[in-house]
């Protein structure tokens, strides 16, 4: 049994924020959960999938976030509580349906949890989902610690049913992927029944058809719901004030910044000077509650991440209330006291708060700081991210890079989102030249592929992972095929959503809960679009490069090369070597070889080491995964492989 459902009410657990969110959904009695994997959100669905049998849940990894929201919404329409989970980018994908869903309203509780990634720790942007709550007019909650992450999700279902609208609970990396003590609540009985009533009066939200028209009427209802939410939030226990009754500075914050702010006040020993107003209900703001606190001080500091979302809402209220509460001085992102990009942390808050309070703060002595900086400069060489040892993508990009060099026409690759985005970096031979949203590699390539009549004669390639293929590449490839774009799409099929922890996708034979399901064949899908398809093992460098050269020379519309090889971290491959690798020191000529250390200087697999003393390459036995690819690149034949 998963520890997520073990233990009685009142017991404490060390839960990751994502586990707390999953537990909150279980305590709320959900029946359905859907999402698309993306760091930092993935563990919510993963944990729910693990308990799906014993808690009688339907849990799926959907093909993309829009579909995930549609799946969850269907459960709500049929009277079942449902959770939908995604990372910040996902809300963009889901936003088309989201706008309509906010208009049509919901029935049983429906909660959307986006996990934002301030600082882009595992993203290629630090977009914010909070603005979608304001944009589509639905309530927004932001948990300020781990216990709240659980409680708020549970409450969000009640709120959703009270207002008959979708409710958004926004997490961030430092809540989702951080852990803390959480006190368990009760798990309700399971066994809900689904029934979709659709033949009632058209304007009856619980019995009629679910639709967002008549638009103006429904839009009015939507705004009334937001008004009502603001009323309910006036009494919300998630909004708290901590500090003296007449602080010199009122610090207003939300989410993980609540924890940084408390830490900053403690570090500056400013407990008697600063009061912290922590908002858990950040859209819409409860006006009277905020007014009461704005009256406490004339200097206001707003701490949040990333954009000044809360800051703007508070300022609107303060402007409206100015005749009664007077003029306030605001510090925050708009005046640069708090940075408006990147992740917050206690130090950044200390810096801003110290400035407002006029305090000088030094974390360590100057001499220690200087000594530590120098030692790290000389002693800790920077660590660039790299493909894992044994990763099929290193081999794939080695071949793509080489084929483009051999072709001589300045061909390029439109990149995409996944582990293989790393090919932007030297460790992937800087092969990717554009990188945007999921599926955009093929979409952008499709555009480049139509520019021949404007003189673009460079080979155009796109890369796609297998999960990404189903998520958003299929429509882009359909577009390329239909219009005859001259491109080569390389599908890097490593049989899983490796970037986020190996979640299943439609190309695999199991679903999130481990049940056998129908697998969709990428090759046959491409062929059905009338596209020429080849398949290679990327570990076979020669065959892969030959196929690539042939495909990029062809000028007849799009073609596809599937490079299929299991991820080195997949359960089937992990820890199992195909080859024992060794280097024959007498054959390796190192710097004196014509290759000038091709294996370590250019190929750059972390399983190889350059032995400075012996002037030969070495295999690092702790790191080498035994894929055998480096044996194929050594021109001297010094790297040898022996089948295990």
């Amino acid at each position, binding site marked *: 049994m998963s520890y997520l459902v073990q233990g009685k009410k009142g017991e404490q657990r060390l839960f990751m924020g994502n586990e707390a969110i999953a537990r909150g959904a279980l305590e709320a009695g959900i029946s359905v959960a859907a999402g698309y994997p993306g760091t930092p959100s993935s563990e919510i669905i993963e944990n729910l999938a693990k308990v799906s049998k014993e808690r009688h849940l339907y849990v799926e990894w959907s093909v993309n976030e829009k579909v995930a929201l549609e799946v969850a919404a269907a459960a709500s329409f049929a009277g079942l509580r449902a959770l939908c989970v995604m990372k910040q980018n996902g809300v963009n994908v889901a936003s088309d349906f989201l706008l309509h869903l906010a208009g049509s309203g919901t029935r049983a509780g429906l909660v959307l949890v986006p996990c934002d990634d301030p600082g882009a720790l595992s993203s290629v942007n630090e977009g914010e989902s909070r603005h979608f709550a304001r944009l589509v007019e639905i309530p927004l909650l932001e948990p300020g610690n781990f216990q709240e992450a659980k409680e708020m999700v549970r409450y969000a279902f009640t709120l959703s049913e009270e207002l008959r609208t979708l409710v958004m609970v926004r997490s961030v990396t430092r809540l989702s992927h951080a852990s803390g003590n959480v006190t368990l609540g009760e798990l309700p009985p399971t066994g809900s029944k689904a029934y979709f009533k659709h033949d009632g009066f058209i304007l009856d939200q619980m019995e009629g058809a679910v639709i967002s028209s008549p638009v103006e009427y429904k839009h009015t209802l939507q705004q009334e719901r937001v008004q009502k939410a603001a009323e309910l939030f006036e009494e919300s226990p998630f909004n708290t004030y901590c500090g003296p009754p007449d602080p010199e500075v009122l610090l207003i914050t939300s989410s*993980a910044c609540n924890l940084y702010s408390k830490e900053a006040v403690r570090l500056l020993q400013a407990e008697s000077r600063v009061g912290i107003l922590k908002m858990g209900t950040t859209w819409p703001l409860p006006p009277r509650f905020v007014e009461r606190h704005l009256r406490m001080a004339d200097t206001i500091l707003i701490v949040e991440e990333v954009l000044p979302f809360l800051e703007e809402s508070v300022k609107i209220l303060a402007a409206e209330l100015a005749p009664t509460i007077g003029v306030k001085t605001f510090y925050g992102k708009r005046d640069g006291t708090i940075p408006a990009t990147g992740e917050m942390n206690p130090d950044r808050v200390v810096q801003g708060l110290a400035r407002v309070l006029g305090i000088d703060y030094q974390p360590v002595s100057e001499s220690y700081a200087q000594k530590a900086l120098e030692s790290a400069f000389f002693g800790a060489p920077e660590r660039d991210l790299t493909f894992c040892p044994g990763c099929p993508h290193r081999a794939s990009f080695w071949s793509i890079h080489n084929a483009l060099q051999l072709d001589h026409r300045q061909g390029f690759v439109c990149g995409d989102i996944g582990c293989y985005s790393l090919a932007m970096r030297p460790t992937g031979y800087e092969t990717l030249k554009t990188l945007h949203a999921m599926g955009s590699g093929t979409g952008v390539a499709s555009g480049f592929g139509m520019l021949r009549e404007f003189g673009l004669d460079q080979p155009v390639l796109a890369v796609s992972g297998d999960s990404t293929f189903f998520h958003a590449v299929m429509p882009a490839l359909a577009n390329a095929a239909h219009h005859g774009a001259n491109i080569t799409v390389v599908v890097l099929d490593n049989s899983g959503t490796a970037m986020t922890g190996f979640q299943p996708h439609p190309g695999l034979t199991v679903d999130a809960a481990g049940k056998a399901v129908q697998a969709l064949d990428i090759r046959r899908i491409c062929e059905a679009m009338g596209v020429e398809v080849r398949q290679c093992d990327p570990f076979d460098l020669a065959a892969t490069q030959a196929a690539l050269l042939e495909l990029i020379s062809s000028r007849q519309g799009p073609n596809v090369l599937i490079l299929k090889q299991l991820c080195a971290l997949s359960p089937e491959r992990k820890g199992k070597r195909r080859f024992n690798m060794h280097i024959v020191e007498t054959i390796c000529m190192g710097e004196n070889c014509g290759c000038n250390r091709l294996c370590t200087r250019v190929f750059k697999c972390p399983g190889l080491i350059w032995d400075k003393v012996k002037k030969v390459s070495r295999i690092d036995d702790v790191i080498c995964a035994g894929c055998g690819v480096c044996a194929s690149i050594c021109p001297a034949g010094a790297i040898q492989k022996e089948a295990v």
Partner: protein
Amino acid sequence: MNGSMTALAADPYNMIITGVGGQGNVLASRLLGNMLMAQGLNITIGETFGASQRGGSVMSHLRASTFNDLSPQIPKGRAHLIVSLEPTEALRVLKDYGSEQVHVLCNMRPIHAIAVISGEAQYPEAEQLKGWITDLSHTAWFLNATETAMEMGNPIFTNIILVGALSATGVLPLDRDIFEATITRMVPSDKIAKNLEAFDRGKELIES
């Protein structure tokens, strides 16, 4: 285990477990967190996951306290203990979080950064690294946990060996019984004996 609050040298007590992606850093922080939570402490752990399998530096911030509102990121210069699975990572963490008071437990097995493998950067000598780390800490312990793990048959035990070693340093209340109770909940039953062996081997590395 009563009186655990007084067993901590500071409140909050701030630990950083650092290493390179794939070294088992996250498991070690969860294990230590659960061992300390079992003694009635509030635990906050902050982890950087994104690069966890991809060769980047990985750090877990682990805080034990009577407070329950700690930031998952330790403020600059405020670490009391650094456990490092790789020596250059210890230096990197000392730069931001170290102070004259910090204790360091450091595994000496190098993992070469890509820039080192390619020849653009130099990896320092072990003795030089020990000198810098010693100079930047109150107390530093160095050990070859990876080699010990390989003697046991698998480098995967490196992190457990370090937890065992940490218990022997006496800087935190981490005894074998608590380790056994905690690891029993965290790993399949057929793996418990090997983990206990790793813990004991780690203890011996400090005690001998």
